[in-house]
């Protein structure tokens, strides 16, 4: 199971890196999103991959070794919210970019500088 998750995270990073290298600005933004998903997943599994029960869900205090670590889950929640804001901003940015320049191709821009 650990191996599958590791491969999955690697695959997400690879997809993100590949998309970042594309010329289209839409794919660029998608690439960033993939990178942030990969990172979120990585962060999530730093708490250890386990099938243990969530922390303190019913008010009782069971054996600590039976609980999964809640902190990475809180961290990933914060990271997701921040990612949401940034994704929204990037979407508006590429929309404006397209409206202003009439293209989504980054290479075309460097050609008609000024």
């Amino acid at each position, binding site marked *: 199971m650990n191996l599958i998750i590791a491969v999955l995270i690697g695959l997400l990073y690879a997809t993100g890196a590949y998309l970042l290298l594309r010329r289209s600005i839409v794919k660029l933004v998608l690439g960033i999103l993939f990178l942030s998903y990969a990172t979120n997943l990585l962060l999530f599994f730093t708490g250890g991959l386990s099938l243990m029960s969530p922390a303190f869900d019913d008010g009782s205090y069971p054996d600590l070794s039976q609980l999964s670590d809640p902190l990475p889950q809180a961290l990933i929640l914060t990271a997701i*919210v921040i990612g949401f*804001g940034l994704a*929204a*901003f990037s*979407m*508006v940015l590429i*929309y*404006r970019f397209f409206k202003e320049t009439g293209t989504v191709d980054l290479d075309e821009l460097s050609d008609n500088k000024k």
Partner: protein
Amino acid sequence: METEILKIAAKHLKPFLLILSLFVFYRGHNEPGGGFIGGLMAGMALVLYAGAFGVEEAKKLRLAKPLFFIGLGFGLALISSLLGLLVGQGGFMTAVWNQWQFAGFSLKLGSPLLFDLGVYFVVAGMLVKVIFSVMEEDV
């Protein structure tokens, strides 16, 4: 996109979605849910309305003041962080809890709920602001 079915659906769904979003927000107190998800739902209610009637029409709604709600949300969050200083012997960002009981019905309210309400407003405001600015044809 502007069809009658969508218009009628959006018009009648809007209050339900808003109430549902408030319910989800309150549920987040102890169970899955919370200000972020509630705020998203509230924002989507307005976006749905804008999808049916157009942005211009949606902007006339009394709820469509995104920047005001973002400010309000920040304000609530700030107040919730300062409550700990005013009440009790806490400190900055300390949670304050209070429990009310009437007729076998107990209501537990605390500053984290206030903070969550702030999140609700900020998220709803931001979503509306972002999506409206994209949906507008001529910016």
